[in-house]
């Protein structure tokens, strides 16, 4: 019988949900931060055959030397099958070897487009943005060229916006049919958005974001409340299974023992 944790934080739930979304034996291109924690958890639980790819060059690693603090960390190279550099990693993506890209983002819109570049008025304010963010890194490439993408992020109204200041990593554009194909992209686009409050997907036809499940303690209303645009709700929306004791234990005792990514407080 499943033994659920008695208490857990929204961030722990987020990491567990991220891990559970990862299918065993699939090739996953892993972005920095929470995706690295989730894939390590997946590798230690239900998905020992998962094949991580890190943009700095490592392919097929076992993350048994501890949680990488960077996608270029030597820990990403542990027991790797193949080790090159950035060009080789992104060429794999472009060629179609990657089943899932797993990324985070600062801001998201209803069609799964992400901003990790700037807050302000683009292009007029590009030279002097209100807030300058780190930039695309590899996320823009992953969103375009991986077969599908998984997005993991904290659920706050300021992060869920109808319009983005800047479109860094492309989802379904404006939702119009074949928008991605017309732009020249090959990947299918975002598959799931995993947040501290909900698991979401995208409507088949309109490509609009849709609640598939609410995290324990949340309701459709509370999720909607924390979202800067109206969400669609799947008729079969359900309550997501809480973390198992073992999953929480692994996060703190085997993965992020120093609390680099997991103990960070999420601003509500």
């Amino acid at each position, binding site marked *: 019988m499943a033994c659920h944790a008695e208490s857990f934080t929204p961030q722990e739930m987020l990491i567990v949900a991220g891990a559970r979304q990862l299918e065993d034996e699939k090739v996953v291109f892993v972005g920095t*931060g929470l995706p690295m924690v989730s894939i390590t958890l997946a590798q230690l639980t239900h998905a020992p055959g998962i094949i991580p790819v890190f943009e700095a060059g490592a392919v097929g690693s076992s993350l048994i030397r501890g949680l990488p603090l*960077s996608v*270029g960390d*030597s820990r*990403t190279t542990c027991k790797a099958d193949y080790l090159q550099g950035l060009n080789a990693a992104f060429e794999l993506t472009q060629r179609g070897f990657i089943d899932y890209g797993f990324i985070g983002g600062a801001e998201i819109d209803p069609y799964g487009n992400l901003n990790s570049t700037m807050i302000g008025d683009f292009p007029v304010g590009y*030279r002097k943005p209100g807030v300058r963010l780190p930039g695309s890194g*590899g996320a823009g490439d992953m969103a375009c060229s991986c077969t599908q993408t998984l997005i993991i992020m904290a659920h706050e109204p300021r992060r869920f916006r109808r319009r983005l200041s800047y479109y860094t990593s492309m989802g379904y554009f404006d939702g119009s049919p074949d928008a991605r194909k017309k732009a020249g992209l090959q990947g299918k686009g975002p598959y799931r958005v995993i947040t501290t409050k909900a698991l979401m997907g995208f409507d088949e036809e309109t490509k609009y974001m849709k609640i598939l499940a609410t995290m324990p303690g949340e309701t459709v209303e509370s999720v909607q409340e924390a979202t800067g645009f109206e969400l669609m709700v799947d008729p079969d929306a359900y309550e997501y299974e809480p973390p198992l004791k073992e999953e929480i234990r692994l996060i703190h005792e085997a993965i992020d023992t120093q609390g680099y990514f997991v103990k960070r407080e999420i601003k509500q």
Partner: protein
Amino acid sequence: MYWTGLSPDEARESLANKDKSKKDKRMTLSQAVRSFVSDGANIGIGGFVNSRQPLALVHEVIRQGRKDLILSFQSAGLAPELLAGAMALFPDRLHIRRLEFAYFAHEYAGISPIFRYLAENGMVAVEDWSNYNMSARFKAGAMGLPFLPVRSPLGSDIMKSNRSRTMECPFTGRTIGLIPASHPNVALIHVQEADMYGNCRIKGQTFTCPEIAMASQHTVITCEKLVEHEVVTAAPARTSIPFFAVDAVVEVPFGAFPAMCHDCYYFGQGHIAMLRQAAEEFRKGNKAGLESYYDKFILSAKDFDDYIGRIPYKELKLARQMESRSLELQKFVESC
């Protein structure tokens, strides 16, 4: 269309006229920076975020002072942070005109406060690209091609922020992106091993270091360890950068610290946190901490040896112990 650094024709011409002989290229950091990093240079920065950042060279550039620089990199943290911090504190000593890049932050250690400060105050021109774009731009340069076609990030605002183009592919009829080559004036790269001629053996991921070296007009290498030439020739397939792409070789153990260097040392996490804290306070208006950092670790240091001499031995030891260990050994070190 404009080129920063060298145009493809200039890069070709420069190499045609270059002495490519196999000669002893060992020199001091000071000589290497004086000879190959000039005012106005487009500098290609090797490494990736805070791995193998060429910090010994960056310290020397700050000590000597340079103006009107362009920094080109895919993802970087400490190298551009230290250069940008020098500009923020001492604009007469160091000035960066432009950044061509994909990501400027520290991953686990957070955003770059000085990048925010410079960008949000409009003090530096930025040209955003993706990691693949910057990598492929160096690769195009290394291949001797003026551009490469790419499939990402088509349709994004990144493509509107830079010199890329889109066109209808002449063969498939579909939309494809084109990105121009990057030929920096000088590449600054830190590796684990090199011989006196400049043959480099990179351990772990190569990042984009070979491409940056091959694309640049000049390449300055720092290495953890100089190795005998025979070590290289015994396994030539292990050579990541060939000697004729290199102009200077400087042996600098811990030359990337507090960045990590695969197989040699892990992140100097305490030092990174201290620097980042001082940088964050600067952004909020308090200069004192950052000024004293630069004074203590860079400006009053005679050279990089002097800086490493000011890092507590325990920090260096921990960084070495943390690298290339099993989780079990790491836990023991962490518990001590």
